[in-house]
C-alpha cells in the first residue's frame, strides 16, 4: 500500500532547511566572478597609496604599451560621468562631488586613480603597476575628533572645519530634569570603525551591446533596482536600456547597499571598448574600497531620580564619515539618534550630531547601521547608572521599560513603537541563566579571587525600512505571483535577498496561501529584466515589507482563482483551501492546476476577468517595526593575560512572528558573531597619515569558530500590528543586542577593581593594563 507523507497544515512556523543551500554548499552557485562571456575583458584599478595628495601628473603610456592592454582611462576621461550618488538629505549637508576616478586630488588611501583594461586579468594588474603617478602628498587627518580641532588638515580644502553637517534633535525639558535629577552619569563611549568583510568581495561585469545600445551590469549588490536607476543617471543613459543583475551575492551586511564608482566605471569601459568587462575586487582592495561601518565617538549623559527612574538622556555624537558620502553615509548616525531612548519610558532627550570628514574610506551601513551604536550607548549608560545607584542591572531595566499597555508608544525621538512586552524576553533570559544562582556563583568566584562577569542588554531596534516618507528612495516593496498553466507557482520579489533565506521563507508563505508544496514554489529575484521594480534587502526589511507585499499579491490572486473556480464548478459559493477550489454546497472541487490551465486556455472567462493567473502588489508599510530582546553574557577574565572568555551566551529575541525558526536561528547566530567581533576583536586602525594599518586578514581579526562560544538562543513572539504576517525582522538583532551585553559583562567582572567603562574592542592588553593599575 502506498503511503503518503501528509503535508503539514502550515509551512509558516516550521523549521525548514533552506532551498538555497544545496547550490551554495556544493559550489554550484553563480557569483559575479563565475560569469564568463565571449570577448570578455578584465579591468584593474590603480588606487592612491596616499590619503591626501594633489595629483600632479599621470603617465599612462607604460601601461598602454604593455602587450595585451586595450585601454587605460583616468579621471580626465570620466569627468562627465555623474558623481557617485549620496541618497541621504539633511539640511545644510555638504556633499563633495564624488567623481568615479580622482580628478586633481585624492582624498583617501584607496581612492581610484585609473583603470587598466586588458584581455587578461593578470596583465591588467601588472600594467596598473606601470602607470606613473606623481603625487604631491599633503597632510591627512584620520581621527574625527582631531579633524575638528583648529588647524587640522582640511579633507576638502573648501571646508576647512571638516564638518559635513550638524543635526540637532530635542524633546521635553532636558535642562530641567538634569538640574533636578538625583543622579547624573556621564561617559564618552566609542563604537570603533569596522570593516564589513563579506565573504565575497565586490565585483562587476558590464556588458554593452553596441547593436542594441543596451547595457547589462552584473554586480554583487543588495539593491539591483536602485542601482539601475542611479547608474543610468550617472551614465546619462535611458533607464530602460540598463539591466542590472545581482547574481548570487556572498554576503553584504550593508556594504553592498550602495552604488560605488565601479558600476558606472565598468559600464563606461564596456561602452568605450564595445566588449564585456569584468572587475573583481581583491580582498586587500576591498579593505580600502568598500565602505566601513560604525566610527562613533559618543558623549552621553543620563539623569535619573533617586528611585532609579530614568529622566533624560543627552548625546553628542561625532560621526567619522570618511572622505566622501556614499549612498547613505550621513543618514546612518541619525538612526542612532532615533533609537537612543532604547526600550525606556523617558521623554527628555537632546542629541547633537557632528558629521566629520576624514581622509579615510567612507563609512556607511554595516549590520545594524546606527542602531548598534545607539544600543551600545544606552545599554552601557543604564548599566553605569545601575552601578552608580547600586541597583541590579535587571531591576533598573524592568523599572524603566515601556509597559505593554502603552503601545503604540510615541517615543521622544518621534517614532511610534508598534508592539512590545519588553519584560518577557528579559525574564526568559534571566530564567535560562538562573540569574539568582548565577549572582551567587559570582560572589563565590570573587571570594576565590576570580574575575567573573554577568552582563545583559535589553535592546530595541527599528526595522522594516520603512514608510516611504522616511526613506531616501521609497520604503515599499513589491511582489508578483504567477501561477503557471501547470499550477506551479513563481514568485518575483523586489527585495533582493543575498543570504537571508527568502527563497525559502517566501516559498513557505506562498505555499501556505496557495495550498501547494514547498517545491511547487520558486522565488526569483535580483534581475531588473525579470522582476518588477523593487527596493532591496537591507535594514531587516525583506520579510516584513517584501513578505507582506507577497502576502497581498497572494490574496489578490486568490480572488481571481475563486472566480475561475466558481465558473468551473458552476457555483456562486466557493472557498479555496489546500490547493483546491471547493463548492460549498456540493463539496465538488477543482485543483489549482485545473483552474490555472483553464485560465490560460481561456475557452471561457468569468465575468470581467482576464485570462491567466498573475498578480502584482506594491505594499507601502504604515510604520516601521520594532523588534526587541535580551542578551545575557557570562564572562571570566584571565587575570594573568587579560583575555576574556565568554562562558555563556544567551540570546532571547523577539522578532515578531517567526516564519522559519531555523533561518531565524542562523540570523541570530551570525549577528551575534559580528557583535562579538566588535566587542572583542575587530578594529579598523589608521595611522596619523591616513594609512589603514589593519588592511588584511593578517591584522584585522574577525572571529573564527574556535574563538566563539556556543550561542543559546530562544524567543518570545510578540506579533507586529504593522503587517498581517505579524513579522518584524531579525537580520540585525544579534549584532545590535550583542556588543553591550559583552562589554557590560566584562565591566561587571572588573567592577571590584573600580572599573566603570571600557571601550571596544576589549583586547587582552587593554584589560591587562587595567589589571595592573595602568590606564587602558
Amino acid at each position, binding site marked *: 500500500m502506498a503511503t503518503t507523507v501528509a503535508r503539514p497544515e502550515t509551512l509558516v512556523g516550521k523549521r525548514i532547511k533552506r532551498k538555497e543551500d544545496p547550490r551554495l554548499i556544493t559550489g554550484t552557485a553563480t557569483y559575479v566572478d563565475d560569469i564568463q562571456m565571449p570577448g570578455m575583458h578584465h579591468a584593474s584599478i590603480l588606487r592612491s597609496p596616499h590619503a591626501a595628495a594633489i595629483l600632479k601628473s599621470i603617465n599612462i603610456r607604460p601601461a598602454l604599451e604593455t602587450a595585451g592592454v586595450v585601454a587605460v582611462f583616468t579621471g580626465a576621461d570620466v569627468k562627465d560621468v555623474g558623481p557617485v550618488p549620496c541618497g541621504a538629505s539633511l539640511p545644510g549637508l555638504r556633499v563633495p562631488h564624488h567623481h568615479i576616478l580622482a580628478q586633481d586630488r585624492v582624498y583617501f588611501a584607496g581612492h581610484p586613480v585609473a583603470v587598466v583594461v586588458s584581455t587578461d586579468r593578470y596583465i591588467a594588474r601588472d600594467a596598473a603597476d606601470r602607470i606613473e603617478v606623481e603625487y604631491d602628498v599633503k597632510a591627512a587627518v584620520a581621527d574625527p575628533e582631531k579633524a575638528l580641532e583648529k588647524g587640522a588638515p582640511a579633507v576638502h580644502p573648501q571646508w576647512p572645519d571638516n564638518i559635513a553637517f550638524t543635526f540637532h534633535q530635542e524633546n521635553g525639558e532636558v535642562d530641567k530634569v538634569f538640574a533636578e535629577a538625583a543622579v547624573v552619569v556621564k561617559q564618552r563611549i566609542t563604537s570603533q570603525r569596522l570593516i564589513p568583510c563579506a565573504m565575497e568581495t565586490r565585483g562587476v561585469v558590464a556588458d554593452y551591446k553596441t547593436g542594441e545600445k543596451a547595457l547589462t551590469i552584473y554586480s554583487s549588490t543588495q539593491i539591483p533596482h536602485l542601482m539601475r536607476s542611479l547608474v543610468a543617471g550617472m551614465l546619462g543613459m535611458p533607464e530602460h536600456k540598463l539591466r542590472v543583475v545581482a547574481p548570487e551575492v556572498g554576503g553584504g551586511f550593508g556594504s553592498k547597499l550602495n552604488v560605488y564608482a565601479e558600476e558606472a566605471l565598468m559600464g563606461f569601459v564596456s561602452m568605450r571598448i564595445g566588449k564585456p568587462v569584468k572587475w573583481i575586487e581583491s580582498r586587500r582592495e576591498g579593505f580600502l574600497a568598500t565602505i566601513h561601518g560604525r566610527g562613533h565617538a559618543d558623549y552621553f549623559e543620563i539623569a535619573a531620580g533617586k528611585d532609579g527612574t530614568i529622566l533624560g538622556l543627552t548625546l553628542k555624537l561625532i560621526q567619522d564619515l570618511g572622505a566622501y558620502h556614499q549612498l547613505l553615509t550621513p543618514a546612518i548616525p541619525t538612526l542612532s539618534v532615533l533609537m537612543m531612548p532604547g526600550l525606556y519610558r523617558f521623554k527628555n532627550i537632546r542629541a547633537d550630531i557632528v558629521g566629520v570628514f576624514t581622509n579615510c574610506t567612507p563609512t556607511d551601513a554595516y549590520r545594524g547601521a546606527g542602531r548598534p551604536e545607539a544600543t551600545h550607548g544606552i545599554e552601557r549608560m543604564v548599566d553605569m547608572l545601575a552601578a552608580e545607584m547600586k541597583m541590579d542591572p535587571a531591576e533598573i531595566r524592568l523599572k524603566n521599560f515601556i509597559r505593554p499597555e502603552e503601545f503604540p508608544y510615541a517615543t521622544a525621538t518621534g517614532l511610534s513603537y508598534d508592539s512590545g512586552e519588553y519584560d518577557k524576553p528579559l525574564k526568559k533570559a534571566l530564567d535560562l541563566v538562573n540569574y539568582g544562582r548565577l549572582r551567587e556563583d559570582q560572589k563565590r568566584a570573587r571570594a576565590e579571587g576570580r574575575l567573573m562577569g554577568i552582563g545583559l542588554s535589553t535592546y530595541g531596534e527599528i526595522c522594516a525600512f520603512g514608510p516611504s516618507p522616511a526613506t531616501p528612495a521609497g520604503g515599499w516593496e513589491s511582489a508578483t505571483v504567477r501561477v503557471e498553466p501547470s499550477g506551479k507557482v513563481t514568485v518575483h520579489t523586489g527585495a533582493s535577498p543575498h543570504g537571508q533565506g527568502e527563497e525559502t521563507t517566501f516559498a513557505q508563505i506562498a505555499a501556505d496561501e496557495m495550498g501547494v508544496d514547498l517545491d511547487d514554489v520558486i522565488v526569483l529575484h535580483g534581475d531588473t529584466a525579470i522582476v518588477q521594480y523593487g527596493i532591496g534587502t537591507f535594514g531587516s526589511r525583506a520579510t516584513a515589507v517584501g513578505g507582506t507585499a507577497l502576502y497581498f499579491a497572494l490574496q489578490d490572486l486568490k480572488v481571481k482563482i475563486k472566480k475561475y473556480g466558481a465558473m468551473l464548478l458552476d457555483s456562486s459559493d466557493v472557498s479555496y483551501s489546500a490547493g483546491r477550489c471547493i463548492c460549498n454546497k456540493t463539496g465538488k472541487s477543482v485543483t489549482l492546476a485545473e483552474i490555472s490551465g483553464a485560465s490560460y486556455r481561456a475557452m471561457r472567462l468569468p465575468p470581467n476577468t482576464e485570462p491567466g493567473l498573475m498578480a502584482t502588489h506594491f505594499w507601502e508599510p504604515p510604520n516601521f517595526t520594532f523588534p526587541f530582546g535580551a542578551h545575557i553574557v557570562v564572562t571570566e577574565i584571565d587575570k594573568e*593575560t587579560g583575555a576574556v572568555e565568554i562562558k555563556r551566551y544567551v540570546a532571547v529575541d523577539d522578532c515578531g512572528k517567526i516564519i522559519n525558526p531555523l533561518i531565524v536561528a542562523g540570523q541570530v547566530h551570525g549577528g551575534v558573531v559580528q557583535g562579538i567581533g566588535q566587542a572583542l*576583536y575587530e578594529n579598523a586602525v589608521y595611522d596619523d597619515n591616513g594609512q589603514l594599518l*589593519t588592511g588584511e586578514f593578517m591584522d584585522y581579526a*574577525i572571529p573564527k569558530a574556535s574563538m566563539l562560544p556556543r550561542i543559546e538562543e530562544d524567543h518570545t513572539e510578540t506579533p507586529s500590528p504593522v503587517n498581517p504576517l505579524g513579522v518584524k525582522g531579525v537580520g540585525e538583532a544579534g549584532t545590535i543586542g550583542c556588543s553591550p551585553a559583552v562589554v557590560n559583562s566584562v565591566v561587571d567582572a572588573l567592577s571590584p577593581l573600580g572599573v566603570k567603562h571600557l571601550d571596544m574592542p576589549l583586547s587582552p*592588553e587593554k584589560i591587562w593594563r587595567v589589571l595592573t593599575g595602568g590606564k587602558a
Partner: protein
Amino acid sequence: MIPQNFEYATPNSLAEAFKLLGESNAKALAGGMSLIPLMKLRLAAPDKLIDLRNVPGLNSIREEGGMLRIGALVTHYELESSPLVRSRCPLLAEAASQIGDIQVRNMGTIGGSVAHADPAADYPASLHALEAQVKLAKAGGERTLAIGSFLQDTFTTALDAGELVVEISVPVEAAGTGVSYQKCVQPASGFAIVGVAARIRKSGGRIALARVGVTGLSGKPFRAANVERLLEGAAGSAGDISKAAAVVADGVDANNDLHASADYRKHLARVYTARALAAAARKAG
C-alpha cells in the same frame, strides 16, 4: 591579490632542483603557505618557483641513532598526526597541531616554515628547546647547523644561494621527559604573539634537564638559557618555576606592534613560560 607573472617547475630530483635554483631570481616552494600570500601581495616576485613536492626523499620521518630525522617536505599535519612523532617527540607534534588552521597544516611543511624564518612562527620555540639540527644541501654538498645558528634574524637564515633545507633532526625524547608548547594566539593571523616550548626531565626529585625555546617575543626566536639555568638542579616547585619564568624576557628587545606592545609581550612571555614549564613539569611526574 594577483601575483606577478612567474614560471613554475617541479623537479624530480635534488640535483635538478639545485640546477633550477641556480637560475636568476628563482625561489624554492615547499608548501607555499607564506610565500604565495607574499606573492599575492606583491611583496615577493620571484621569476621562477621551484616546487619541491616531487623531489623524492624529502617527505619521510625516520628514527635513526636516537634521532628523529624529518624530511623538509613533511607537512604540519603529518607531524601532528604521526604515531612515531607523537610517541618519540611529542613536543613537535604538539607545536605542529597549533599552527594556523587545518588547510595550512595540510599544505605547509616544516622545511618551508623554518626556511622562511618568520619570527612569530610556531616551530622555532620547540626546535630551540629540542636543540634541533638543520641539514642543508646544495650542489656542492651538505652541511648541518644547530637551529640557533640556522635562524639568524627576522626572515633571515644561514641558507646560501642555491641551498635548500632538506632535513630537520630532533632527539628522541627520553622517558620521563615532560614537554609542552604554550601559545598566545594573534587573533587575526593565528601566529604566535608569544609561544613557549618547554622540556623538563627530573631525576631524584630534582630537575635534571630544562630546555626552553621562545618564539614571537622578538625578531629572532631563542633558547632561554637563563631560565634553564635557574631550573636545573631545582626541585621544580611552583615557586621555582615562577622565579625562572620571570627572567625569560630579561634583556630581550621585544617586538612592538598592533597586537601587543613590547611590555605586554614581555609579560606574556613570562606568563606563557610559567605555563609551559608547569605543564611540562606535571607531565615529567
